């Protein structure tokens, strides 16, 4: 069944766009003016959302899909792909975004979940989806539902990369462990990871996810961006950091440079020098448990 999902023409096109975004930075924006700055700074795509995560965290209340007029204005303003967030399980917000013609939908834990049990069945959408994951099982459940890109969740709006590192390392370690199993051990692995057997089998054979794996949540400095790339991220999402900094354009360019040249410490040094102060960090252990965004999604 998943053999056919992964070879399905629509699915290949969805993954294909994710391939085009590799090695780049996807920036959170709340309006067209920010989108323009992001594009000018070298973002490979922008993500439209109603408020950046650090403001959602501060202001509380229900965070939903962005106003349509704002997303449409962003689409009319930039030529790079435009992504937009919908609430977990809110398949009608997703259908609205699809009808609007956004290039990617992020079914995101950063917004207030609309369903505390189920995610959107993403397979019969024409628009591709990205979903967050903290571990391999979660990633494979989302791919089973049709996600064509995974991003490790990190802890959005915290300015602290520790969760992004934890999630990326966890997924990489769990994938490597699967490659060492015999075929007759894979069903138990599927049970342990609570993931579809066919996808467990695929990862065991290939040692990687069948879709691109990006990183999000807590990247606050150029060195943070290079760190998650070195740990296996193929692209970096940056949220609150950019437009909460005093000089968004400078900040954005420095993150882009460090992401492109993550293997080259001289270039990461240059990027770090261009940016004296990163985003102010929150200590994740001090965020009340019920305010953690990463634990949303099932």
């Amino acid at each position, binding site marked *: 069944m998943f053999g056919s999902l992964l070879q399905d023409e629509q699915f290949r096109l969805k993954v294909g*766009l994710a391939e085009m975004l590799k090695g*780049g930075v996807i920036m959170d924006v709340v309006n067209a003016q920010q989108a323009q700055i992001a594009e000018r700074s070298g973002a490979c795509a922008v993500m439209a959302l109603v408020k950046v995560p650090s403001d959602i965290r501060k202001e509380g209340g229900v965070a939903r899909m962005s106003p349509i007029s704002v997303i449409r204005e962003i689409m009319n303003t930039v030529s790079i792909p435009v992504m937009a967030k919908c609430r977990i399980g809110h398949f009608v917000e997703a259908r609205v975004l699809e009808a609007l013609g956004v290039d990617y939908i992020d079914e995101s834990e950063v917004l207030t979940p609309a369903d505390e049990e189920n995610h959107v069945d993403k397979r019969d959408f024409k628009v591709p989806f990205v979903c967050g994951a903290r571990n391999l099982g979660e990633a494979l459940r989302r791919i089973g539902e049709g996600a064509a890109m995974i991003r490790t969740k990190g802890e959005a709006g915290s300015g602290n990369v520790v969760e992004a590192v934890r999630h990326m390392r966890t997924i990489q370690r769990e994938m490597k462990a699967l490659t060492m199993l015999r075929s007759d051990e894979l069903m138990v692995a599927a049970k342990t990871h609570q993931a579809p057997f066919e996808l467990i089998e695929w990862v065991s054979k290939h040692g990687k996810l069948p879709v691109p794996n990006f990183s999000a949540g807590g990247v606050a400095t150029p060195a943070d961006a290079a760190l998650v790339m070195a740990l296996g991220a193929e692209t970096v999402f940056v949220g609150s950091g950019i437009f909460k900094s005093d000089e968004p354009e400078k900040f954005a360019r420095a993150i882009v440079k460090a992401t*492109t040249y993550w293997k080259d410490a001289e270039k990461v040094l240059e990027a770090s020098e261009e940016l004296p102060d990163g985003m102010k960090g929150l200590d994740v252990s001090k965020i009340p448990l019920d305010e953690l965004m990463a634990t949303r999604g099932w």
Partner: protein
Amino acid sequence: MSENTSSPRKPVVGVLALQGDYEAHARAIEQAGGVSREINRADQLAEIDGLIIPGGESSTMLKLIDYENLFEPLKAFGQSKPVFGTCAGAILIARDVINPSQASFNLMDIGVERNAYGRQRDSHIVPLQAEGLGELEAVFIRAPIIRRVGDGVRVLATHRGDAVLVTQGLHMAATFHPELTADSKVHRMFIERLQH
């Protein structure tokens, strides 16, 4: 190049690795019998026989090219060595670009319109017949359209009446993504050009 080896040296193909699907191209190059190198600094251009500009976001790549002062070195490379551009790469090597207009290397006499089929929901996969290559699976993702083909440009394949695979002199351009299929014959064609 070593002079004493009996087998010819494998061509070294650089892939511009600023942003985009450069890893997919590296796989296709190796599969087609070449040696791949990621290129993101000007000094690395001396080590390669030809260059592929991959798919990705052409405007993003252009900004990185500009910030890292790579525009002139890349253009100079293309004036003496073969360059193959796919999708975003085809936009970068064109003579002129619209929607919106942006800078390009002017290595091939083609005029290209960005995102000309529409947004992601208009992306598609089709079989194509290409001169000298036979049937190809062409993956179009937010693809450009070649709106103008100059006199010296040879059209190897068309789709819905528009040129999608073209050559001129040393160079090649495809508006689709041969690197996203298992078949590496388009890459083999480029590598053969490096050996002549």
